[in-house]
């Protein structure tokens, strides 16, 4: 099927199957809210666009992944991404054992396992390698103690993948391993944290003498940092997806249409500038995906995408706030003439942490300065 035919195939199916009530929701849908849709996608075999077909994925080319994602945007899908599909899956494909793949991948696809990510700790945000959660060997198990934070939707997940410290003597990055842990293991407590939008999208997760089988380790002992970095790479291309900026731009367009703002040349020029910027970032994205399609790893250069796209995202939401007028100061959900509803401040809030999580913009710039431009110091 050529790309254009593929696009129409996806479009047709989505138009027929994407639930009406999920289109352009005023806020991002969480795992529970999206589970019905996940199962429907799974019936179609469309849960994991980027995984190889042999593991139940769609095996799409990078460009087709973009098409797929664009078509989802087109019907207004706005869902917290599945960390199992986007992060753990690729990691297991790269570093897991055959047993681990057989055990976990199908459960991600069918929705039985809902994963959350246990990376950040209080005091180890940008400086992730300084994490302190300990995992000490006790027979066939590890005993895990410590705290994770900024764990998105931990309250709805039933599985967590963790970075833990397995060697306290080794240098920062050297003593870190990667563990898979069911959330119902005794000793795990979740405390929800409200974000500035007033929603609980993330949580703190406390580990008190939590027993985890040694077979739940992915990769070798003390090799977690390498994998985490690879995963951060995969995360950064996800975090640098242009849809981050494109989706709110479309919502802005809908709102601005209703407000008649396209009759205002000043607004129109600002919108145009951002529209072009976002289209430019699509070109960067496709160029980088092409590398992954060839089976090569993306290195530090991936930071370019995350830097550029998250900055554009925030420029888009700046313009949303400007266009909203007095609604920039309200919690109002605006009914739009296209039948959807829209809450401008939500998008504004949502854009704030994009330059913080997954390595802040400052950290991304440090990486590029050192690793790509080879600047001294």
């Amino acid at each position, binding site marked *: 099927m050529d790309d254009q035919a593929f696009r129409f195939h996806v479009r047709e199916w989505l138009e027929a199957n994407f639930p009406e009530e999920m289109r352009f929701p005023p806020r991002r849908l969480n795992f529970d809210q999206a589970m019905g849709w996940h199962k429907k996608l799974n019936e179609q075999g469309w849960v994991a666009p980027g995984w190889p077909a042999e593991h139940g994925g769609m095996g799409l080319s990078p460009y087709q992944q973009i098409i797929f994602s664009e078509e989802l945007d087109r019907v207004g899908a706005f869902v917290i991404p599945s960390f199992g599909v986007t992060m753990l899956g690729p990691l297991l494909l790269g570093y897991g054992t055959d047993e681990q793949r057989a055990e976990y991948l199908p459960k991600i696809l069918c929705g039985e396992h809902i994963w959350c990510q246990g990376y950040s700790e209080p005091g180890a945000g940008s400086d992730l390698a300084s994490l302190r959660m300990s995992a000490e060997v006790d027979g066939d198990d590890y005993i895990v103690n410590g705290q994770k934070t900024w764990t998105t939707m931990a309250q709805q997940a039933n599985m967590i993948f963790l970075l833990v410290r397995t060697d306290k003597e080794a240098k920062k990055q050297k003593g870190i391993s990667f563990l898979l842990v069911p959330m119902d293991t005794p000793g795990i407590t979740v405390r929800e944290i409200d974000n500035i939008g007033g929603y609980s999208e993330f949580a703190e997760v406390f580990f008190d003498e939590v027993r985890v089988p040694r077979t739940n380790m992915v990769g070798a002992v003390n090799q977690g940092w390498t994998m985490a970095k690879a995963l951060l790479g995969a995360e950064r291309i996800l975090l640098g997806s242009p849809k981050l900026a494109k989706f709110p731009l479309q919502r802005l367009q809908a709102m601005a249409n209703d407000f008649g703002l396209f009759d205002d040349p000043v607004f129109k020029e600002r919108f145009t500038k951002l529209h072009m910027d976002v289209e430019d970032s699509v070109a960067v994205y496709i160029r980088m995906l092409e590398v992954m399609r060839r089976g090569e790893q993306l290195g530090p250069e991936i930071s370019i995408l995350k830097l550029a796209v998250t900055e554009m995202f925030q420029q888009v939401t700046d313009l949303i706030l400007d266009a909203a007028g007095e609604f920039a*100061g309200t919690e109002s959900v605006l009914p739009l003439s296209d039948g959807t509803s829209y809450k401008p401040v939500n998008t504004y809030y949502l854009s704030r942490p994009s330059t913080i999580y997954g390595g802040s913009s400052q950290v991304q710039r440090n990486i590029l300065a050192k690793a790509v431009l080879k600047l001294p110091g």
Partner: protein
Amino acid sequence: MEDISLQSRIDVLSEEQVMIQDSAVAFIAQDEELKKVRENRFSQPGYDAQTWAEMAEAGWLGFLVPEEYDGIGLAFSDLSLVLIQLGKGLVPAPFSATAVLAARTIVKGDNETFKKARLPALISGEWKPAIAWQEARSTLDVKAEKVTCADGKLNGQKLFVPDAGGADAFIVSAASAAGTILYMVEKDASGLSIEYAQRVDGGFYATLTFDNVVAGEEVASAAVAEQALALALDEARVAASAELLGVMTRALEITVDYLTQRVQFDKPIGSFQSLQHKAVDLFVLSEISRSVLLQTTALFDGDASDKERAVAASQLKSRCGDAALQITKDAIQLHGGIGYTDECNIGLYLKKAMYLSSLWGNPTAHRGRYAALVL
């Protein structure tokens, strides 16, 4: 929290101004942790009666009311010292809306009987009017069109009336045969329905719908109503800008403090040059804003023309609106993840900035007016 503004370094305050400022500093120190702010948010009327009573007690509500109506008749440069502190403390009382916009609209009106009867009650805190003038999003136009008055009955809709929940009455602009007139309408007037929308800062906007509501006393006749409203609104914009300056100043203080405390990569993050320079850029924005506020309050205290006031108010409001948004959102960035949580106070500063910068015309709207008046 240490004051990092340049005020103490380079500006000179009179003794009286120092007293005014000190009392405002003490006032907000009562709620330095913003517990009262959090208690009041999202619950009507969005502030507590006690706060308002204390402000009345301090005499602040009468700052801009002439002595003949029991006011103090002080200057904008004095009042701004109080407003900056109210901004720093995120004090949710409707000071700019009631003690500036409403009070000054009445003062600039031409009903002496009304002034004599009502202004003392406003100043004492007993009576709180709210002004209902706006009929569309993002407009600065004070000419009433959509709310009409014919045969003594008001019909139509007013939008974005701040702090209506705690108000006792509304002063409503309406299109009559003679032009725009300001009428008083009691809050419980028959035919008036009020719909509230939650604001991001925890207060409320109201939409007022008039269905054959009997127009009450005339607060300003067609001869002066538009001018009174326009002047009072420009004064209220100056007041909101002073609050915005307080908001940005405190947000920056909190952030600089955080940069000094928070350790990452084995160093306080405030020792990283990129974060230092970001903080400096925000500081520059705040001090430009402060300079423009000083200039503008001096202008409002003098004998500038209506047009000069309008130009200055637009210049100031767009500067402070932009600067406050920039500073508070970057303050969140500089806080990292913790800044994105509701439990961290820094987000409350962003929300106050979002509200105040979009109130009575956002920066883009004011640049539009500036261009029309100046270029």
